């Protein structure tokens, strides 16, 4: 792509000397968006950065008292917070692994001539477009130990999916896998269809086995796009709130976002939760950075 040869329109060009100058049009088009995002995303964060050094509680009228780094120190020494982090890590691991296995598997199956392929693909993609909170809630009925269809079809009797503290996290992850495997499938399909056919033909001539072909041709070529899917899903799973919140109130499913919500809006520890939010924020920004790097890498190809 000879993008470098393309003349970028000069903001001060003579071609558009009538009306507004290109420079002012550029500013007019871009600055409102930047300003909007700064006012409604960055400014609030600065606002809560201030609160994170105080003992402020939004439920009382008591003025905020500056307490320095005490909130951060307390949080990082709190074993329960670390419990929330380890629950979240476990959840991310289960659900992202599940999505990659199911999603990539579906893509491998779909990557051939299949009757009504377009329709089937669209139908398979439907779950990821739905509301996690609303559809997730309905899984309560599907999981019900007494009359849920899951126990019925799997012949599990009265298996407690959501009431058993050891199982509940898995139950939530399964719903997440159901909803978001299609996302991995969608991206994998794009990756698979971009693998040049002649590579497979060459492998066939060389009498390479299926497993060899998969690991030496398919996987390496799909890897960059698959990586985007994995990072994106990791970030989203890390932030999970809706699904776990509507499905379970077990302490064993208390993900970081839920802990944060309770701290801020049920216990009204505003100062402490602001500090907590900052710890979470730094982690998300780190993952976002990796994600954008990969996006640009794939875009550049």
């Amino acid at each position, binding site marked *: 792509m000879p993008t470098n040869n393309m003349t970028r329109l000069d*903001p001060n060009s003579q*071609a558009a000397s009538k009306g507004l100058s290109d420079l002012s049009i550029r500013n007019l088009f871009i600055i409102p*968006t930047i300003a909007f995002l700064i006012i409604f995303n960055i400014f609030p964060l600065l606002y809560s950065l201030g609160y994170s050094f105080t003992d402020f509680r939004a439920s009382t009228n008591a003025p905020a008292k500056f307490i320095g780094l005490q909130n951060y120190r307390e949080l990082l020494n709190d074993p329960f917070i670390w419990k929330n982090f380890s629950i979240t890590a476990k959840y991310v691991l289960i659900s992202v692994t599940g999505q990659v296995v199911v999603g990539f598997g579906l893509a491998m199956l779909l990557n051939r001539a299949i009757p009504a392929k377009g329709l089937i693909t669209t139908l*398979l993609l439907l779950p990821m477009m739905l509301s996690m909170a609303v559809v997730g809630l*309905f899984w309560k009925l599907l999981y019900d130990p007494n009359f849920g269809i899951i126990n019925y079809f799997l012949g599990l009797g009265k298996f407690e999916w959501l009431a058993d503290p050891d199982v509940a996290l898995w139950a939530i992850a399964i719903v997440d896998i*159901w909803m978001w495997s299609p996302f991995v499938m969608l991206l994998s399909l*794009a990756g698979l269809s971009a693998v040049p056919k002649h590579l497979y033909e060459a492998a066939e001539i060389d009498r390479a086995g299926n497993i060899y072909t998969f690991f030496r041709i398919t996987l390496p070529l799909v890897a960059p796009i698959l990586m985007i899917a994995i990072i994106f899903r990791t970030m989203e799973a890390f932030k999970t709130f809706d699904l776990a919140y509507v499905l379970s109130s077990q302490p064993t499913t208390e993900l970081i976002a839920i802990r944060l919500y309770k701290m801020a809006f049920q216990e009204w520890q505003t100062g402490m939760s602001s500090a907590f939010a900052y710890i979470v*924020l730094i982690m998300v920004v780190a993952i*976002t950075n990796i994600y954008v790097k990969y996006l640009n890498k794939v875009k550049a190809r």
Partner: protein
Amino acid sequence: MAGVQTSAEKWTNRTAIAAVFVALIIMLTPIYWIAATAFKPRNLATTIPPTVVYEPTVAPFVKLFTKRSQLREQPTQEEYDNAPWWEQMVFDGGEKVVRNRKSGEVRSSGYGDRFKNSLIVSVISTILAVGMGTLTAYGFSRFKVAGEDDWLFFILSTRMLPPVVVAIPMFLMYRVVGLNDTHMGLIILYTAFNLSFAVWIMKGFIDEIPREYEEAALVDGYTRIQAFFKVVLPEALTGMAATAVFCFITAWNEYAFALIMTNRNAQTAPPYIPSQVGSGLPDWTVIAAGTFLFLIPVAIFTFLLRNHLLRGMSFGAIRK
């Protein structure tokens, strides 16, 4: 799949197709079950074995939109006969519709209002996000911007923030300016959320429009603004429509902000529907009916959007 297939390949293919159909059935069963439960009488919603064949009823929808109370005693024959057909359905389910004492009007549940709130907030925030996003995308696509990649990263990063993290300060600020539990408050939040997405994806669409079109228009004596509105915008319309649908779905499905920032006046459907489960034995037919209506727009949009899903989901990085 070059020409001749060996019989082994044929079998692999057949097995794969069979597996795809099994997967399809598993993936769609929860959605089918929502639709099926929405048309069941209450006593058939929670049976073992599950009821698959039944006479469909719209009773769950009647109950969804009305306030009801448990019947203490059977209605008299006269009462029953005088009631309209939809009220008889509620009687049949062991409940009666609550009416205002004076006017005799049927009292409605909160669902209709929540649905309307969802529509207002989603539509307005979508229009704002796509409008502003298209302009900004054009700016980034056509002009030199110092530190362009950094700005684009900044724009995208605002979308990646966890909702609860943003909600804590927003809640406090909204309390000061009186935006808690208002449509405007939610619209601002959803616009900010979707704006970053709209910029990224619209930039991809506008990058694809050859700049020769505008240059020709400029030579013909159009101003830059005229060229944008008369040449670029018509070309970008498909992309804008796809972006709008994505933004609408995101706003329509959003839960965390709505849960925190609204409670009555401006509450949208996603926090309302789970709040109806409450304690005790929930009436799953009513929840299914509410969910079913809520899912219809998204299901339709998914089909309209099917060719743009990949692009939207990858923030415009991957195009077919």
